[in-house]
């Protein structure tokens, strides 16, 4: 039995492999928190107080857990969206726009469609939201395949377009016209379209975990998943092997965007209860951090999203008790992304070997390739 086979079969080997896959993200998180602490101390507050009140706000009681899981849910969806696209070598920064379309569509189905039984109504609204997001994601996919327009720029531009368009809808055709309302928002969705929350556990969180399982299954156990991974690793080889690269690229973007749209629908039906412009403005970028922190693995996305969700959920309490501005979480997040991307730094600190070639992610293949 060779050394490598031994590592694959023994319990010790499994542990070693587990450590190898989580050490870099963990190291990145620790380094980011340390630098964050320095910034907090330099700006005149106590880092210990800040982190302690952050943790207490996020996990201190049932309400904290609920807030954390509510913040985690859309992060899982947007992280999955980014991670899924990564597998095909695509960088979807448009999760935010796709999420907005999913959210407003779910809200519209939620308040405008009457007479459906509770569970069915919720499922219909959720599906509509996911499809709306998915269709919006088809645009950058098609632009990429047929014109070569790079998805990084088109998805960012489409985010701004989505913001404008949903803002228009919430101010115009879909505006809540009940007396007394002057702000841009849709009416409340009907109770039959709502997703339940059992004490601290939102149903949406379970949906997010299920979505991660489905994504894992698609990637590992279907022909489509195989094609997506092949296209991501080597589009030329995929084309040579007779795969329809163009179709795979568009389908990947649609599924990726479908996940983001579903995240928006879950947020609307489970937390907000209607559509209002301006919520979760940075989810697209957050999804990138989540996906990379989770090493673009569907089940890695869940703990990464939980970490960011906890930071988001606890930051109010931190600002209130430790007088540290909430935005420090953005700074820490950027540092996490930096260290997880610059894994050589973390590996050097942990005295680990450099990443193998296959583990590296390469997206910058120029503006007009594929």
């Amino acid at each position, binding site marked *: 039995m060779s050394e490598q086979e031994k590592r694959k079969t023994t319990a010790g080997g499994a542990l070693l492999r587990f450590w190898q896959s989580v050490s870099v993200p963990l190291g990145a998180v620790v380094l980011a928190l340390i630098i964050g602490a320095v*910034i907090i101390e330099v*700006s005149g507050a106590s880092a210990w107080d800040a982190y302690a009140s952050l943790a207490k706000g996020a996990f201190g009681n049932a309400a904290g857990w609920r807030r954390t899981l509510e913040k985690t849910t859309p992060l899982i969806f947007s992280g999955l969206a980014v991670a899924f696209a990564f597998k095909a070598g695509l*960088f979807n*920064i448009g999760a935010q726009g796709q999420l907005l379309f999913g959210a407003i569509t779910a809200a519209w189905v939620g308040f405008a469609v009457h007479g459906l039984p509770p569970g069915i109504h919720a499922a219909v609204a959720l599906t509509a939201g996911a499809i709306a997001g998915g269709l919006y994601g088809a645009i950058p996919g098609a*632009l990429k395949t047929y*014109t*070569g*327009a*790079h998805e*990084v*720029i*088109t998805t*960012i*531009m*489409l985010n*701004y*377009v989505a913001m*404008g*368009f949903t*803002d*228009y809808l919430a*101010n*115009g055709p879909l505006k809540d016209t009940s007396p007394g309302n002057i702000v841009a928002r849709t009416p409340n969705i009907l109770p039959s379209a709502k997703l339940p929350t059992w004490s601290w556990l939102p149903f949406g969180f379970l949906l997010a975990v299920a979505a991660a399982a489905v994504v894992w299954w698609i990637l590992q156990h279907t022909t489509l998943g195989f094609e997506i991974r092949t296209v991501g690793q080597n589009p030329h080889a995929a084309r040579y092997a007779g795969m329809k690269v163009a179709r795979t690229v568009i389908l990947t973007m649609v599924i990726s965007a479908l996940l983001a749209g579903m995240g928006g629908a879950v947020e609307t039906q489970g937390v907000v209860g209607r559509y209002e412009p301006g919520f979760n403005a*940075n989810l697209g*970028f957050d999804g*990138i*951090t989540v996906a*990379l922190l989770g090493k673009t693995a569907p089940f890695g996305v869940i703990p990464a999203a939980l970490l960011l969700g906890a930071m988001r959920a606890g930051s109010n309490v931190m600002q209130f008790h430790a007088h540290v*501005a*909430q*935005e*420090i*979480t*953005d*700074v*820490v*997040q*950027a*540092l996490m*992304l*930096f260290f997880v*991307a*610059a894994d*050589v*730094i973390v590996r050097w600190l942990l005295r680990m070997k450099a990443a193998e070639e296959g583990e*590296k*992610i*390469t*997206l*910058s*293949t*120029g*503006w*007009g390739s594929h």
Partner: protein
Amino acid sequence: MTTPASFANWKLFVKRWGWWLAGAVALAVLIGYYYAKSPQITEAVLASTLRQSVPLVLGALCGLLGERAAVINIGIEGQMLLAAFIAFLVNVYTGNLLLGVLAGVAIGALLGLLLAFMSVSLKIDQIIGGTVINILAIGLTGYFYKVGLSAHGKLNPIPLGPLTKIPLIGTVLFNNPPITYASILLVFLVHYVLFYTPWGLRTRAVGEHPRAADTLGINVYLVRYVNVVVGGALAGLAGAYLSLEAVGSFERLMTNGRGFVALAVMIFGKWTPFGAWGAALLFGFASALQTQLQFGGQVQIPHQFIGMLPYLLTIIVLAGFVGKARPPAADGIPYEKEG
């Protein structure tokens, strides 16, 4: 005297520049027509076009300096944002506008150094490296921003003497604040450096074929570092423009996607300074038109749709032109020294 040789030259000239000349004449006629019809609005729209184009052309110059040396910079947005903030802060605490601008340029260069470190030395995926800068800028500006700070004035127009007396052109071109003038000069300067100096030749060699450049003794890493840092300084100048020249204040997320639009401008301009300038003016015109439509009140379109114009234009430009434009051959690929 019309000798056959100069006649052939003339034909060549027309063949090469004919469409450009026709376009320029058509544009001049169009502007003249509108100027005769409503001088104030025409002057306002053209002046606004030029001003709106400033951060875009500076951002595009930043992008193309990097990409000519094969480093993709998707962090221009973040460089502009943090530079706008630092320029504003320095102005708030020192009361000096020039110091503010210099600080903005310096912080842009510093972020350029960070990007160069990530993409040239650490060989991180360049798009992720730029994204780090974008998120970092959003976080730092959000964290350190305090409501209620106000800048000490802003950069005012400097009329260039008798030149301002020329109708239309005088008010549009020769009565601008300093960074607007600087951006025009920089277009010429970057063009000159890129195509008429040894450094420019080295830069282009590194962007097209780094291995060959290395064999000839060019320090690939150094060229990439310098270009990305200088580019960062230009993005920093664009940031200072936003906070100290255009608005005279800082707002959260005030760059509003301009850094990304600048990349589209760069691609539309086919990685050349003059091309980028033309593209930036086109985008500036779209923004100016947007303001005019919004406040002119002649057209009844929801303001959100008018607000989408520059972003839709970016998508159309990318979809329509990127297929014909060719980026530097080694664009986005980290260079690994052999042996």
